């Protein structure tokens, strides 16, 4: 009889250990989520249509081709190239970002009106991306190390099982106090994010509105970021999304910033 108890305890212990080995820490969930959301493929291309909609329903459209290339592993350096179609006063403008996880980005802009390439200061990754409700970090990622991440609970979003991760900035220089991210347990895409301001009031809400399969990679092709305090929102559609196109390193250069090649910006 005593033997049976020992076996029972051993079995329970091993179960406990194995389930602990399976449970991911908050940081691991966010790392996997960033890899799934911002790093899939060797490179990525999409025609991005952003609608900036104010609380009265008035719309402004920002349209660009966005190209991204990973320079190493997920979580590592990336290069972004953007070409603007709309609005008409920024047509032909191009924009290039060298993104480094642990330090400030390098950014360059080509201003077609005076045919000038300018390097621009970029120490604030929380600033608005082209006037939208998305920040630069929302578009290209926030450093995992900037926040502490805790898995608070598990919850469904629609019919998808999700981890709910609470992230709290380590520094005091962020515009949000903390945020919750609902990360899909099977593909690790963030399906929802709720940001709270420094006073604890609801601030911004992100939703991934449509996930499509692109070359076998689940991709959030429709996204919305809503500012709950102003009622302003930005709806984004990633059209013609594609991966592993063989974008050359040489694209990310002043030459092509001035004269973007047609095959990459259509």
């Amino acid at each position, binding site marked *: 009889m005593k033997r049976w108890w020992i076996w029972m305890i051993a079995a329970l212990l091993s179960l406990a250990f194995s389930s602990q080995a399976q449970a991911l820490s908050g940081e691991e969930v966010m790392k996997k989520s960033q890899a799934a959301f911002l790093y899939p493929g060797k490179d990525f291309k999409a025609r991005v249509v952003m609608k900036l909609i104010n609380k009265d329903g008035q719309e402004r459209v920002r349209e660009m081709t966005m190209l991204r290339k990973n320079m190493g592993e997920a979580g590592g350096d990336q290069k972004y190239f953007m070409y603007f179609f709309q609005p*008409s006063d920024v047509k032909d403008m191009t924009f290039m970002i060298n993104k480094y996880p642990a330090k400030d980005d390098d950014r360059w802009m080509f201003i077609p009106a005076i045919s000038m390439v300018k390097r621009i200061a970029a120490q604030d990754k929380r600033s608005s991306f082209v006037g939208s409700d998305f920040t630069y970090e929302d578009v290209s990622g926030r450093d995992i190390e900037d926040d502490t991440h805790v898995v608070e609970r598990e919850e469904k979003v629609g019919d998808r099982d999700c981890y709910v991760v609470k992230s709290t900035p380590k520094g005091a220089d962020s515009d949000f106090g903390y945020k919750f991210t609902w990360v899909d347990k099977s593909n690790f895409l963030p399906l929802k994010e709720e940001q709270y301001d420094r006073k604890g009031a609801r601030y911004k809400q992100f939703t991934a509105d449509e996930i499509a399969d692109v070359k076998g990679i689940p991709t959030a092709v429709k996204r919305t970021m809503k500012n709950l305090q102003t009622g302003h929102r930005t709806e984004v559609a990633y059209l013609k999304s594609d991966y592993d196109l063989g974008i050359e390193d040489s694209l990310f250069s002043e030459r092509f910033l001035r004269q973007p090649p047609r095959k990459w910006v259509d």
Partner: protein
Amino acid sequence: MLRAATFFAALLLAPLAARAEVMLSGFLQQNTAFNTAGQNPDGRHYKWLEERARIKLDATGDAWRLLVKGDLAYDHLGRQNEGELREGYLDYAGGNWDLRLGRQVITWGLGDLVFVNDFFPKDHEALFAGRPLEYLKRGVDAVKLGAYPEFASFELVLSPNFRESRIPDARRFWLYDPMPTVTNRETVKPGQGDIGLRVYRDVAGYDAALYLYRGFQRTPSMRPDSMTAPAKITYFYPKLSVYGASLSGRAGEGVLSLEAAYYDSREDRAGSDFAVPNSQTRLLAGYQIQPAEDVSLGFQYYAETMHDYDAYLAALSAGFPVEERWSHTVTARLTQFFLHQTLRLSAYASYNASNGDYFVNPELRYSFTDKVWGAVGANFFGGKPWSQFGQLARDDNVYLQARYEF
């Protein structure tokens, strides 16, 4: 000649165009600048008053692109109907080289309204009369060859004909004139073209570039036929070569820009001809930061020094203003966006510590919709009566720009 060339180019391009993606766009624009300090020399009260239409044709094939930007304007201040080919060029992109042929706007260097290695023609009148920024630059008729081997990038610009910068019109702006009684004046343009080269690459995370130019000063010098009893003044563009370099990259929280150039005044290397600018060294240091969201601050320090200052002093006639050996200028620009970047406030100020010259340009620009924007701004000038901005002290103006883009 130019017409025939355009016609043949069009003929040659017709079959290519059939396979191209062609886009037409443009704008309608109203631009008015009111005087705030008094009337013009010609008695008018406006620096600028015109309606303008732009047509832009953009045709792209696989390796080539044709771009034409043409303006038609009606000027209410006497110039009347004006047509202008702003840009019109053909691009061909090879593997690691490319070519641009035709009228094109080229901007080199890093300065913000300060030009050290930007040798290309400008329209100073456009800047002072409150026109949109794109009119600050004039196109050059040139061949630009780009070569992009691994170790560096090269841009060579060959212009068969020299094109000058446009200086403010003496009927609209109060310009310093040391010999106002001499009315017989002529302008002699160089019969040759000019050549520019830029070589650039990344050096340890910094954008580094070298520049060479061989051509002429873009703004004219004046030579009277006699110093004691002048009857005729000739404007001419002295020979000039420039050797320059620039560097820009991240420093601390912002972006640091450094530029330097040696201006070799080939027309008068001794510096003893009073009508020709002395050889110079130009130095620029700029720093730009983003102190808060949607706010950008830029500061520049700019210095010029004459190389043959003693010869300059010796050659200067009595009664002519005396420049300092060193000229020090500081500038600042604030740019701030509001309302989801649809409203932009920008303010630029320049002050020359050597002669008290200043130029201030605040501007507010709002995009009413994605297709319609308007701007209101002002230009204020001051300093010595003969200096760059000081002579324009009576030319202060407030301007309006409105544009519908299609």
